[in-house]
């Protein structure tokens, strides 16, 4: 039987292409915020913006609840949600807030926090944004609420509003 190489090459290429797309879809859960709820956060290690101390997922295991907030000084909607973060920080001892500063300049972040007050228990920097991508972040601001076991309880895309703020309070009470 005559082997037709062009056919084999074309079919193999198509199979390869479709397989990559399929694997891409599976990987792609990073971008699907709904699917993330109930799963454990990825392990990470990021330096504190103030002193360079490393904060990792291990650090968060000490907290009853942790709210991980992705923000940047250049992001306007981040300012809208800031008041809720401050309320949370002032009124609740059970929750710690981790601010992951996304693709930003250290000087600008410090100015930002000096101006608006700093609600964060830890502020770390993710300069190239790669760790944030691991968390499934595709826009700023986004917020993830996790428990002691590092399981995601809630994920908020966009700025926290009053309703979501109350939902967070309900979760931690």
């Amino acid at each position: 039987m005559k082997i037709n190489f062009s056919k084999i090459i074309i079919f193999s290429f198509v199979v390869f292409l479709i397989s990559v797309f399929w694997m891409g879809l599976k990987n792609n859960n990073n971008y699907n915020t709904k699917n993330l709820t109930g799963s454990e956060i990825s392990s990470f290690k990021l330096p504190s913006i103030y002193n360079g101390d490393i904060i990792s997922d291990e650090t968060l295991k000490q907290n009853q609840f942790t709210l991980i907030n992705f923000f940047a000084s250049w992001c306007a909607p981040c300012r809208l949600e800031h008041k809720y973060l401050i309320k949370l920080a002032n009124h609740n001892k059970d929750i710690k807030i981790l601010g992951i500063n996304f693709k930003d300049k250290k000087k600008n972040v410090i100015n930002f926090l000096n101006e608006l007050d700093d609600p964060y228990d830890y502020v770390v920097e993710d300069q190239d944004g790669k760790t944030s991508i691991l968390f499934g972040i595709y826009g700023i601001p986004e917020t993830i609420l996790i428990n002691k076991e590092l399981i995601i309880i809630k994920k908020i895309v966009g700025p926290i509003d009053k309703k979501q703020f109350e939902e967070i309070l309900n979760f931690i009470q």
Partner: protein
Amino acid sequence: MLSNIGSTLIFCILSLSILIIYNSYVDIKIKNQLIKKSIYNLSLLQTTATVMSFFTLVAGFIFSDFSIVNVYENSHSDKPLFYKVAGTWGNHEGSLLLWINILVLFSYLFLIYNLKHNKKFRLYTLIFQNFLIIGFVIFLLLNSNPFSLIYPVPSEGLGLNPILQDPALAIHPPLLYVGFVGCSIYFSAAIGSMLSEYNGKRFALSIKPWVQISWVFQTLGITVGSIWAYYELGWGGFWFWDPVENASLLPWFAISALMHSVMVLEKRNTLYEWVIILCLLTFILSVMGTFLVRSGILNSVHTFASDPSRGLYILIFLSLMIFTSLIIFFKKRKKDEYNFNPNSKETFILANNWFMIFFLVTVLIGTLYPIFLDVLTNIKVSVGPPFYNIVIIPFVIPFLLLMAIGPQISWINSKKNYLLKTIYILGGALVINLFLFYFFGSYGFYSNLILIIATFLILHLIIDVKKSLKKKFEYPRIVSHLGFGFLVFFIGINYQHSVETDFNLRVGETQKLNNYEIFFENIKIEKNKNYKSVIGDFKIIDLKKNYVQYLSPEIRIYAKPETLTYEAAIKSRINSDLYLTMSNISRSDFYNIKFQNKPFMIWIWISALMIALGGVLQLMLKKNEN
């Protein structure tokens, strides 16, 4: 109520498709040349049901029927009527319904406007088009039903994504859909042609107008999308090689190649196999683009429409389409044997096709490579403008040369010698280039070369206009090619001479830049129907020309959903665009200002529209001939 009507109509479309397939299959076996009347009636009924289902959804949006989830999620009662209507397709579910409308409409129109063609060919085309319709209707019903209900009925909707509340974006999806989904008809026709062995010139004649229609709409859709990104997203340019932009460009390259090679099939009755490949490829690339954009596999401005579960369905559908068409193609292929004279129009068209495919492959690699790398090695990269500029620009130069010379050459074997004329025109282009050099000052090697060749093409076409005054059939080609020549020319100048800078400014302060003085006069707050805006008043003084211009960029605060958008203030002038955006700096009096002066921006849009206009002229001439 509306939801029930809509859902019933969707089931009608599905049932009618099954009936059409069954009846067509039975009718193929009957040996006469007339298609049964019942098939026409079923198709008409299907078209009516489809259009009605779409208008039912439009009514849901107009009357703010929040019992429909889709209306609740994408509209609210305060929204202006225009955006309520545009909201119908400003979301995944509604746009899929629009997609089905176009599939059905093209299916019916192809059936009734191809009466002169072979019965078997038309019926096979109808069958395959209805397979596509069934595939998308099932997708709609299982995963993306625009008529799903919500209980209890909310009193107010969430609102349309503010960046979509823009006139250009309201028309961008429908245009692009007619362009991309319109390709489905010659995908089906290509399979129909192979199965019925209705090939060669007759096949070319049957698909040519449909290729032209979808090409015109694709060109317009891409241009309007690009204009929207410029005005609305504040990207400040005409093309960014964003993966989503690329996804729309891929089928455009294939369809442009197809539009040219179908002429060879019509005139010389050759390249049939190649035309079939392009017919199949164009629609496959359109569906692949939809997959990339809707599955969320790419991260871009269209992420609002993405969802991996949708992606899986589109991927299954895409795989079925590719494998079916490949199997039929390899079983039924008819190898072309052609021996073109190097100095003939068909050789030049073939060369054009190879360039188009080269551009297509380059953009495809640039778009897919980051996905491949991410999936296979977990490394995240993005491919940006430098890659495309390095790979594509050198090839644009011979491409433009061929574009200028090709149309001068006759079919089969051209006896004329164009060398002398070419040298004269090239000389003219060089002289014009010297003037440009004098006017703008120095510029880069590549830009210089691109400008010379673009001028060469434009001059060629201007001479053609003079020669072809009485040959109406030449007008469309001249207009489209002239549009392309101008497009490359203005992009070249724009690329080389744009001024771009950003700085911080407070009310009452002035910033000096080269020839410009920018004075931040005032700031005011206005309340609009569905948003509040912070408007900055700026006075721009051109010190060189002693010319004053006022610009007022905005920061819009939308209530539903709560979002901030930055509206650029753009003053489009004949020779350049002044572009100003402002964004607030937290708890400070300063605003961050981005100022740009972009030469000939408006001419880039006009050139792109001219390319599409050529296609419109072609269709009008065709209509007059008939």
